[in-house]
């Protein structure tokens, strides 16, 4: 299953993937252990002439053991998850670039604040379905929706956030690689949900500067 995970190009994606791998190995070990024991019992204790079942109502020591063991594993997983969750969700690091995302049936509107760095001014620029960002910079997204709930999903960034009408939700990422990737919508939003698709363009510093210059030259 591990090889199917898409490439990761965000600073925190590695932590998510690490946790994913950890859970993968824990669950795989439990899976093999439980199913192996299960099949072994089925074979060993199959009914056959002369074979009799033992008479037992259980064992309290075992009950305690197999209550504590999964509890410990789960608590440890929760603690480990906590750190990564906080890193991603709790506080946004110092921001380099801010872009506003307006989801609507069935497109992503990206609103760039322009040279003045402020939204709702004359130099704002709206581009449909194209998110341009510089590499190795902290990008803050201010996410909103014009109609129903959508979900902004960038698999390679390990980024997913529902966009809500009526409230602004902030998120952030820092891309570690230049290139172009798809931004599907992950939340059912109507008949055009499938194919609601934007593109993330991660530029090198130079290219990004050139893109800004070209866009705001007039």
């Amino acid at each position, binding site marked *: 299953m591990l090889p199917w995970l898409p490439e990761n190009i965000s600073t925190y994606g590695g932590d998510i993937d690490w946790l994913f791998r950890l859970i993968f190995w824990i669950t795989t070990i439990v899976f093999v252990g439980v199913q192996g*024991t299960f099949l072994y019992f089925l074979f060993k204790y199959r009914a056959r002439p002369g074979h009799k079942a*033992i008479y037992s109502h*259980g064992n309290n020591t075992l009950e305690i053991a197999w209550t504590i063991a999964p509890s410990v594993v789960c608590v440890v997983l929760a603690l480990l998850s906590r750190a990564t969750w906080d890193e991603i969700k709790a506080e946004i690091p110092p921001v380099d670039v801010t872009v506003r995302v307006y989801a609507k049936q069935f497109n992503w509107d990206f609103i760039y604040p322009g040279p003045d760095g402020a939204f709702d001014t004359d130099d704002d620029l709206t581009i449909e379905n194209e998110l341009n960002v510089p590499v190795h910079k902290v990008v803050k997204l201010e996410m909103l929706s014009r109609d129903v709930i959508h979900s902004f999903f960038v698999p390679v960034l390990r980024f997913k956030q529902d966009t809500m009408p009526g409230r602004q939700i902030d998120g952030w990422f820092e891309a570690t690689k230049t290139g172009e990737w798809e931004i599907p919508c992950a939340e*059912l939003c109507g008949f055009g*949900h499938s*194919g609601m698709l934007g593109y993330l363009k991660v530029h090198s510093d130079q290219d990004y500067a050139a893109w800004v210059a070209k866009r705001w030259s007039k």
Partner: protein
Amino acid sequence: MSEAAAAHAHDEHHHEGGFVSTYLFSLDHKMIGKQFLLLSLFMMIIGGLLALMVRWQLAYPEQPVPGLAWVPEPYLYDGIIPPETYNMLFTMHATIMIFFVVIPILVGAFGNFLIPLMIGTKDMAFPILNMLSFWIAAFAGGLLISSFFVEGGAAAGGWTAYAPLSAAEVYTGVGLGQDLWIISLVVLGISSMMGSINYITTIINMRAPGMTMFRLPLVVWSLFITAILLLLALPELTAAMAMLLFDRRFGTAFFLPEHGGEPILWQHLFWFFGHPEVYILILPGMGIASEILSVFSRKPIFGYRAMAMAMIAIAFLGWVVWGHHMFQSGMNPTMGMAFMTTTMVIAVPSAIKTFNWLGTLWGGNIHFTTPMLHALAFVSMFVIGGLSGIYMAATPVDIFIHDTYFIVGHIHYVVFGGSIFAIFGGIAYWFPKMYGRMMNETLGKIHFFGTLLFFNITFFPMHIIGIGGHMRRIYNPEQYEFLEPLLHWNEIMTIGSIGLGIFQIVFAVNFFWSMFAGEKATQNPWHANTLEWEAPTPPPHGNFLVTPTVYRGPYEYSVPGEKEDWLPQARPGSGVAAAH
């Protein structure tokens, strides 16, 4: 209700009736149970066909569905599924399967049939309420199906009906269809309320002499807890549905932000019901599996009290985990932490139950009958569903897999791999008591192995494509470049689902053929201990010739010193076993 009052209530309806009072408006819990079973199996066919169409579209997007060229526009265009219809298909598939198949079979059919028989009484506490509960459920089913035929078609906002998509017609183009969906679930809620009040009253008040709570079979425990969950969860859903309908039709704005409403409120309301709901879907399955595993291992259930306590724990914890469906919703991240913790905790009782099932098999004398095979598959598949839950409970991992096919894989391992296997097992196991005949073992095994194989081919790859990022509820995966390496899985899964569908025909044939022509069943064909096997086969109206007295727990198998390897609950006797 006292014994005397119960006997009185029973006298009132104990009479030989004609066709109408025997088969249609019967007050006999056994007949009502069978009515629920047949209705739900019929709905299962519809729900299954809808799913096959969904699968067809995913594997062969926008190619005509074979054999469906006759379906008129705008549902299909020369057999091609348009996106609007696609959204209806998966919405109605899930709604039907959850509300009109799994719950009515587990709760309506098994609950009705088993509770009075297994606690040793003549009928439910409120037979008329019971009869009404069935007919109201049938009416709700009719309403739901009728929604396909109204202008705009059936609901298309997902079974979770997230607002505002579901709260205003402009967003989906579905008008009356969504209203009917809401009304149907409200009506069904009334039916479930009637049923659950009845079950709780019956179990508390009408147990046979000697049947203490801790001598109840685990399946009765599971149905008891399920009834409590239903009683508490459904009114809340009904209230939410009423709010949604008011938003749609009467100008309120509970969930519509442009008028000051709050969309996320819907999610809280829905999942506050929705998570207890998923345990409603699985607890009776756990109970059924426990009965079957013990009987065919010829061994007492391992850790009876731990099993009952684990279910009680689930019943409490189930109310404080709903937020795990909303990690990416925009809910405060701190609440995400809290819900992750509770969710990790609720995995523990499930683990405890699994280990106790293994403990039951340990040292047993295992007979691989059709019911047993299904119960074993239940355990094995439920383990997979439980383990995939851990990925999603870990909030950072859930960021990635939320709303992907990983979730769909999880759902189907717990609900199909779990509940549906338990249902098949339960039907094969209690069929002799229900219809007085045995189901055919050969057909049963063919159905079982085919189902197990094709179930896994259909659903396991969902985890893989989910990890690859394949979103759920998308109409055409070919629209995305990054999904290209995953597309062949879609074809494999669709072929699997067709195989799965074909093998269900074997079940249908076995079911109906056995009902009329199966080998005649004896009173206790499986040599089981619980009270339903004390009643004649099939049990008459009123169930028992003499009210049984209970002397011991339900799982005294292979008791040392006994001649036979079973010791019924109702057999007088002394010695070690009587103490349990």
